[in-house]
C-alpha cells in the first residue's frame, strides 16, 4: 500500500450562488499532494485554480459551496471539521501566499506585528522568544536588516519585500503544505525570479509540500514535479512535469506550451489560443475546450470526455496528442 498523500481531494466542486444563478467554478476535480511534493496548477484566468486553493484553505465566503467526496489533509477530514478545528490547521499546517503582496498585508499594522500574530496564535510564543523568531523568519526570507524591519509598515516596503514578508508569515509555523497562488504575478520580472527561487529553496530546506498556482508554464517547468492543467473548472491533464513538457497529451496543454516564447523560436508570430475560457453562461456542449480546439471533431462537440489514462497520468481528451512535437511549424 502506498503512503497516504498529505492532501487528498476527490471530486471537489465549488459552486457560487449569484443573482444570475448558480455557477460551478470548480467541477469535480481530483487533487493529491504528497509530503514534500511540488505540484503546479496551471490554467488561464477563470479556470478555477484560485478557487480550488481557497477551498483547500477554507477561505471561500459564505456564498461559495464546497462539495467533495473526500477532502483530507494529513488523514483528517477537512469537511467534517468545525470552524475552530479547521482554524487550528489553517495558517499552521496549511499556509498560503497570495497574489497581491501590496494589498494582502494589513496597512494598519507593522510587519513585525503581523508575523508575530501568527506565531502567538499557533505556537503560543511570547516576549523575547517571539521577537527573535520573527527576526529569524525575516532573515530566512532574505530581508536585509530584519530587526529594524519589524517596525516597518507595509506601505514602507516594496512589493517584493512585502511578498517576502507574506512568505515569512506563511512559513512561520513550519507548515506541511504551502499554497502559493500566483505569488509572482504582481511583481517585476527581476523580482519574480528571486521570489520563486526563495519559495523553492524554502520548500527544499523544510521538505514541505508546495502547490504552486500560476498561469506561467515556464515557472512550472522550473519548479514543479507534477503538473495539473486546469480548464474551465476541470482538470484537463495531470502528469509529471518532464513527461508533460516533452509530450503533452491534451490539446490545451499543447497549445499552452506552444504559446511559450522560448518554444516559438524561428516563428514569425507567437502562437496564441483563440477565444477565452467559457464563463458563467456559455459552457459549450461536449468537451469544454472544443470551441477553441484545432482538433475537435463532431464527437467532441456532443460528448463530454472523461479523464482518460495516458502515459504516466491522465488527460481529458478523446484524441490525446501523439508524441510528435505539437503544431511544429504551424501558426494558429
Amino acid at each position: 500500500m502506498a503512503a497516504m498523500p498529505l492532501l487528498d481531494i476527490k471530486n471537489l466542486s465549488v459552486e457560487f450562488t449569484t443573482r444570475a444563478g448558480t455557477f460551478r467554478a470548480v467541477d469535480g476535480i481530483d487533487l493529491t499532494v504528497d509530503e514534500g511534493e511540488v505540484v503546479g496548477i496551471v490554467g488561464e484566468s477563470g479556470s478555477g485554480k484560485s478557487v480550488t486553493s481557497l477551498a483547500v484553505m477554507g477561505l471561500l465566503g459564505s456564498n461559495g459551496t464546497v462539495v467533495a467526496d473526500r477532502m483530507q489533509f494529513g488523514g483528517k477530514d477537512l469537511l467534517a471539521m468545525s470552524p475552530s478545528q479547521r482554524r487550528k490547521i489553517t495558517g499552521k499546517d496549511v499556509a498560503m501566499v497570495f497574489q497581491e503582496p501590496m494589498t494582502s498585508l494589513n496597512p494598519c499594522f507593522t510587519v513585525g506585528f503581523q508575523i508575530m500574530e501568527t506565531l502567538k496564535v499557533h505556537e503560543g510564543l511570547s516576549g523575547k522568544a517571539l521577537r527573535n523568531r520573527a527576526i529569524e523568519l525575516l532573515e530566512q526570507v532574505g530581508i536585509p536588516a530584519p530587526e529594524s524591519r519589524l517596525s516597518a509598515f507595509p506601505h514602507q516596503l516594496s512589493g517584493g519585500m512585502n511578498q517576502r514578508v507574506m512568505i515569512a508569515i506563511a512559513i512561520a509555523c513550519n507548515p506541511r503544505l504551502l499554497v502559493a497562488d500566483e505569488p509572482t504575478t504582481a511583481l517585476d520580472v527581476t523580482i519574480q525570479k528571486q521570489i520563486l527561487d526563495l519559495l523553492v529553496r524554502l520548500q527544499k530546506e523544510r521538505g514541505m509540500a508546495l502547490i504552486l498556482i500560476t498561469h506561467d508554464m515556464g515557472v512550472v517547468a522550473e519548479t514543479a514535479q507534477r503538473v495539473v492543467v486546469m480548464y474551465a473548472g476541470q482538470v484537463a491533464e495531470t502528469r509529471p512535469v518532464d513527461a508533460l513538457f516533452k509530450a503533452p497529451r491534451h490539446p490545451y496543454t499543447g497549445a499552452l506550451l506552444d504559446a511559450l516564447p522560448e518554444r516559438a523560436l524561428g516563428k514569425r508570430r507567437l502562437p496564441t489560443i483563440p477565444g477565452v475560457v467559457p464563463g458563467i453562461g456559455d459552457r459549450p456542449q461536449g468537451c469544454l475546450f472544443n470551441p477553441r480546439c484545432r482538433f475537435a471533431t463532431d464527437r467532441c462537440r456532443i460528448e463530454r470526455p472523461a479523464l482518460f489514462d495516458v502515459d504516466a497520468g491522465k488527460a481529458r481528451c478523446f484524441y490525446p496528442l501523439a508524441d510528435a512535437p505539437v503544431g511544429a511549424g504551424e501558426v494558429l
Partner: protein
Amino acid sequence: MLRFILTRVSLVIPTFLGVTFLTFLLIRLVPGDPIEVRVGERGIPPERLLELRHELGLDRPLWHQFLDYIGGVLQGDLGVSLVTRNSVFSEFVTLFPATLELAALAMLFATVVGLPAGIVAAVRRGSIFDHGVMGISLTGYSMPIFWWGLLLILFFSVGLGWTPVSGRLDLLYYVEPVTGFMLIDTLMAGEYGAFWSALHHLILPMIVLGTVPLAVVARMTRSAMLEVLGEDYIRTAKAKGLAGKRVIGLHALRNALIPVVTVIGLQVGTLLGGAILTETIFSWPGVGKWLIESINRRDYPALQGGVLLIATTVMTVNLLVDVLYGVLNPRIRHSR
C-alpha cells in the same frame, strides 16, 4: 507635524472672519435693537432712546461698529453682555461645561451604540438585523430634534414618570461647581443622590442630541466595514487561522475606524448646533439656551462672542481629529 498644525491653524483665520462678520450682520438684520427690546411696549421718550443708543455705540455707522468689535476680538476682548453687564467670555465659560457635558455624553452614546450596531450590520449584511439598523438609523437621521425631544418627554417623563422633564439637577440638591460638569462635581462632593439625579436629568437630552450622530456613526461604520471586509488583508488574516472575532474586531475594525473617526469629528459641529435646540427643549442651562436668549434680547456682544467661541471649539476639534487620523492611519503619519 508642527508645520501641518500651523498650516491648518492659518486656514482657520478666514473662517473666523467669516463667522464674525456673518453673526454681526445677521443679528442686526433682525428687527429691533437691544434698547427697543428692553423697553418693550411701554415706550420711553425719544431723547432717552437716542441717549441710550449713543451709550452703547449703536448710533454709529455699521462698519464703524464692526471695526470696533473686530479690534476688541483681536485683543481678546469679546465685550460685555448688554443685559447682565458681565464679560461675555466669563458667561460663556460658566455655561459651557453644561453644554460640553451634554455633548460629550451624546457623542459617547452615539459611538457606544452606533459602532457595534454598524459592525454587526456589516458582518450580517442583508440580515433582518442589518435592515433593522439601517431603517432605524435613517429614521433617526430624519427626525427633527425638537419633535423627537417632545415625544420622548411626553412618553418617558409625562407618561411613565421615569425621568425629569427639564433642568440639570433636582432642586433638593446643591453642589458647588468645581469643574462645571455635574456628574463629576456631584461625585467629588460625595453626593451620590445628586449624582443619580444629574444622571437622570441627562438621559433624555443625551438620547435626543445623540440620535443624529448615532445614525451617522452606524451607517458610516457599516459601509466602512463592508468595504474593508472585502479587502485582501482580511483574507490573509483568515488564512492565518485567526478567530472571526479577531479578524473583525482588530484587522477590519482598525481600518474601518479611519473614516468613522473623521465622521465623528465632523459631527461635533452638528452636535453643538443640535445642543441649541436640545437645551431649549429641556431647559438645560448651557450655552445653547444662552444663545437663544441672547437672540431674543438682541444681546449683540453675547451672541457674537458665543457663536465665535463655539466656532473655535468646532475648528479645534476638527484639527484634533486630523491629528488623530494620522495616529490611526500609518500611511498618513509618515507622509507628513
